[in-house]
């Protein structure tokens, strides 16, 4: 009986190939603030292995640029990020799209890449309202042009 219960717990807790990371409330709230009230230009999330949670590492104010955002991402470690991209379409409308960026540089440790890859689904489900997702393994893959091409 104990064995069955144990298996049931595991099956419930990890339906797919997920790592069992939780998303803490602060992360969700910060994302909602970016989406609704537009007080952040970007939010960078980090996985705290010990707490088994995805937490907010850094946020950027609305005046910050894309270069400030890319500079806040570490060169050798993975992160998740949400960026609010403002642009003008060909028929002159001001639009804004939210990008989810899975930053997984090829120079980071394998363990880090595995962890972030398996937890990505969990966090995507909780962050409702993302328009586009970008997976970037080096700085050229999350170049501003890539975002521009995707949005148009």
């Amino acid at each position: 009986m104990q064995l069955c219960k144990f298996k049931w717990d595991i099956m419930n807790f990890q339906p797919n190939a997920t790592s069992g990371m939780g998303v803490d409330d602060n992360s969700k709230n910060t994302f909602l603030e970016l989406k609704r009230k537009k007080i952040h230009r970007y939010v960078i999330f980090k996985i705290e292995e010990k707490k088994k949670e995805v937490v907010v590492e850094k946020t950027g104010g609305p005046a910050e640029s894309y270069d400030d955002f890319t500079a806040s991402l570490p060169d050798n470690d993975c992160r998740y990020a949400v960026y609010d991209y403002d642009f003008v379409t060909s028929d002159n409308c001001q639009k804004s799209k939210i990008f989810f960026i899975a930053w997984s540089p090829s120079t980071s440790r394998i363990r880090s890449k595995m962890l972030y890859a398996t937890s990505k689904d969990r966090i995507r489900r909780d962050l409702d309202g993302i328009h586009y997702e970008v997976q970037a393994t080096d700085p050229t893959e999350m170049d501003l042009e890539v975002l521009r091409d995707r949005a148009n």
Partner: protein
Amino acid sequence: MAQLSETYACAPSTERGRGILISGDPKSNSILYCNGRSVLIRYLDRPLHVHVYGEHGYPVTVARYSPNGEWIASADVSGTVRIWGTHNEFVLKKDFKVLSGRIDDLQWSADGMRIVACGDGKGKSLVRTFMWDSGSTVGDFDGHSRRVLSCDFKPTRPFRIVTCGEDFLVNLYEGPPFKFKLSIRDHSNFVNCVRFSPDGNKFITVSSDKKGLIYDAKTGDKMGEFSSEDGHTGSIYAVSWNPDSKQVLTVSADKSAKVWEISEDGNGKVVKTLVCSETGAVEDMLVGCLWQNDHLITVSLGGIINIFSTSDLDQAPSSFSGHMKNVTTLTVLKNNQKMLSSSYDGIIIRWIQGVGYSGKIIHKDIPQIKCLVAVEEEIVTSGFDNKVWRIPLSDGECGDAEYVDVGSQPMDVSLAISSPRLALVSTDSGVVLLNGAKVVSNIKLGFPVTACAIAPDGSEAIVGGRDGKLHIYSVSGDTLKEEAVLEKHRGAITVIEYSPDVSMFASADGFHESVVWDRASKEVKLNNMLFHTARLNCLAWSPNSTLVATGSLDTCVVIYEIGKPASSRITIKHAHLGGVYGLAFIDDLNVVSSGEDASVRVWRLTQE
């Protein structure tokens, strides 16, 4: 932004023992020929603007304009024919798999509705005629047992198709729908080319038995032949009629082209012999010809295209050429703004900006070239053997070369620009320092060296290995002392270059990354130069040391500016089909690149 300003096109690809077919459009004064997987359209009055069609997946053999000049049909070695528009960016109309083997000749009918293609194949599929828009077959073509080398449509009614091939036969078919009519076996060797006269009265066949025979176009009866007096002394590879159907041009392996007068009763007499060979070497065998408007165009085995003027056959022809194979190195000679490009088959060509082809540098001792560096008065090259050659260059003529054996195949050669007697050669086991033509020292480094560079004053050398590490050595006399090891690259280092002001150096690797380092502090100066997607083959600095250009196997050239982030780069996409292998800056605004499509292109950079 970068714009293409000039193209120094490749020469037609040739094969010894076979003719090639070039065609053209009299209305737009252009000629069409093929090299590798590209079809080149060259305008005779604008030689520096060349259009290239590179959509074939296999080497292209022949391309022809349709009679109305709107479409081009091109065929390749897989038996596929592609029909595409001349204007509107070469939009594809249709492509058909016509034969099961390579296609050797292709002709449009005079009304542009049917196309006949002939070549190699199995059994029935040696010749096929089909409607140009639907591809449905129009006729049965039995009668040949070996490769069919050439075919032609009779331009006037009653329509006929004539084919000729390696089985020494010339076959005549009538239709449409085309059926076998008769077979002629007058030649004693491969029949290389058959052409109807533009007025539709006669056709001529030329053969490797050195004869040319003239037949009546309607009945197929033999009318006459080329007179043997003053005839060709080698296989005749191609024939081309004059638009007024009275004269023909033939080219032959005896290195001459002849103009024949064809009389009404069908006999040919030599009017003029055009000799275009200076050295009489194998490369001067003529393999292709075309008579267009007032120009007689001949192509030699070495890829030289000569254009004679009909009005004055004695005048020396204007000739131009290009590379036929992958152009692997490119350098700019600073004092006279000439560019030298070399391909692995040992051909070095000199180009002048604004003019184009300026001559070949031929040296009998150099069969193949892998690395080449040049300073004002000499060229240093290495091939696939163990030798490094030094050739003095004066006024574009080669002096006597001297060579030095370095023990194993050189991977990279670098000259100390300020004292060019010093050279650094990298091999699989280490580096070799050369002074003039003597080995100063042979230093075993213990790791396979893939790229090397020596500072202009010869005091410092940077060596890159297959593991991606950069080793910096100081050079004193004949020894190297290791000063630092830089680790950042993730693939084998392919090229290292010092900046002209010697304050920086740039390195590129096989993992599509390049890095600019500060020479004194050994710190990274420009990071994230990752905008290529395949191995980096070449790298060049602008004369003012502010721009770095990198060329890659992914066919793009990317130009970065020192001081600005790597993301604000200029990309030239699809610079060369197959990959970019050579890069150099002519001045601060003009970049020249060369690649596997055997062409050299000059790009003009403009500030946005």
